[in-house]
């Protein structure tokens, strides 16, 4: 979707103002810690995946997305996911009082303290084996398809319609557009090099380039 999250190339957002590295804490408030931990833990019943989480945050009103701090966006996304997955109903969310416990099989999947280290170390690889051969190879000229889906996508607006060159083939990975709809499907994934001039016009420094990971559905021969 063409939401406020798709920020590449936007103007007027002001300076970055980084905190000095040596002075920046991992979290800036206790509530941020809890939102971080809750968001990770609440995914374990298996009702959503990473692309559904991203899409939940993206679907906020653009004004809310931009004015919120990072973990406020996580909180808004988590509340949306919990209600949409029917793990929590809106009344429970409003009152903070449970109308009843979650179903037993769901409760059994809740993350336990002793499982955390192994779960983190294992991660969730997204590489898949698919039956089709990759359409493109390194050096091929490709155009990022000019498409504007209203669902989740990882094709940023600033590359759409632009011509680049395949830098590297990454193998087949889970396709986010379909994964956000709950369907785990593999698609070939490529690193595509776009010259700064192709993206930002003739005044951009000629030597610079942006490398973007794009799935085959986002690409056509050029």
């Amino acid at each position, binding site marked *: 979707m063409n939401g406020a*999250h*798709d*920020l590449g190339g936007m*103007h007027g*957002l002001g*300076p970055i*103002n*980084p*905190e000095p590295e040596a002075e*920046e804490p*991992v979290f800036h*408030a*206790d*509530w941020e810690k*809890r*939102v*971080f*931990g*809750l968001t990770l*833990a*609440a995914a374990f*019943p298996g009702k959503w995946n990473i692309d559904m989480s991203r899409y939940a*945050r993206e679907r906020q009103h653009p004004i809310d997305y*931009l*004015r919120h701090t*990072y973990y406020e966006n996580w*909180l808004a996304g*988590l509340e949306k996911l*919990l209600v949409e997955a029917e793990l*929590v109903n809106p009344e429970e*969310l409003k009152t*903070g009082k*449970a109308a009843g*416990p979650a179903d037993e099989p*769901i*409760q059994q999947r*809740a*993350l*336990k303290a002793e499982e*955390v*280290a192994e779960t*983190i*170390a*294992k*991660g969730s690889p997204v590489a898949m084996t698919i039956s089709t051969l990759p359409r493109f190879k390194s050096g091929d000229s490709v155009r990022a398809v000019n498409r504007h889906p209203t669902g989740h996508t*990882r*094709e*940023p607006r*600033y590359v759409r319609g632009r011509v680049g060159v395949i830098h590297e083939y*990454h193998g087949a990975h889970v396709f*986010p557009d379909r994964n956000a709809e709950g369907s785990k499907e593999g698609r070939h*994934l490529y690193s595509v090099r776009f010259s700064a001039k192709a*993206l*930002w016009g003739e005044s951009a420094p000629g*030597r*610079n380039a*942006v*490398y*973007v*990971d794009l799935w085959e559905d986002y690409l056509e021969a050029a």
Partner: protein
Amino acid sequence: MSEHHHSHDHDHTEPPSDLVLRVQALESLLIEKGLVDSAAIDVLIDTYETKVGPRNGANVVARAWGDSEFKQWLLRDATAAIASLGYTGRQGEHMKVVENTPTVHNLVVCTLCSCYPWPVLGLPPVWYKSAPYRARAVADPRGVLEEFGTELTDHVEIRVWDSTSEMRYLVLPERPEGTVGWSEADLTELVTRNAMIGVEKAKPPLNIGRSK
């Protein structure tokens, strides 16, 4: 953060106390429903506050500076090379390492959200997740670098890596001059988190006040 129930004095942001209450209410609701275990949340927080952070990435970089075979492996198959040092898992399942040279400087961003290689760098700093960085890194990388005090000569090609997939990028900074013969442990002191994102270079040796 401890004062609750004071009146709204501005229109555009929620008072922090409301936010604190909202998070507390959500956590107690999810515990009551059996959906989360607060001890597991404590361990998750502690893991990324105290255990997994940019020292891991500094160890990867220092090893690559001192061991050319490891460096070639790292550039060819970063996931496996990094796993050999014990850094694996969540948000680092598929790794790529990009090398800075005298003519190429790499910079990592996630314009669409906040993708970042957790096993080697921990959780991202606020600025990495901020709208201005995400907006400008792809369109004006030189301006972004200048804001971090990093000046590059005009002949240096800047390559920006937008983390749109589950591939995660780590910059291998150039090894600073004047570090011949240094131990790996000493070299790690020169490797900052910001250098591994690509907004800065590794520290020059004189800046760490060692007596070598």
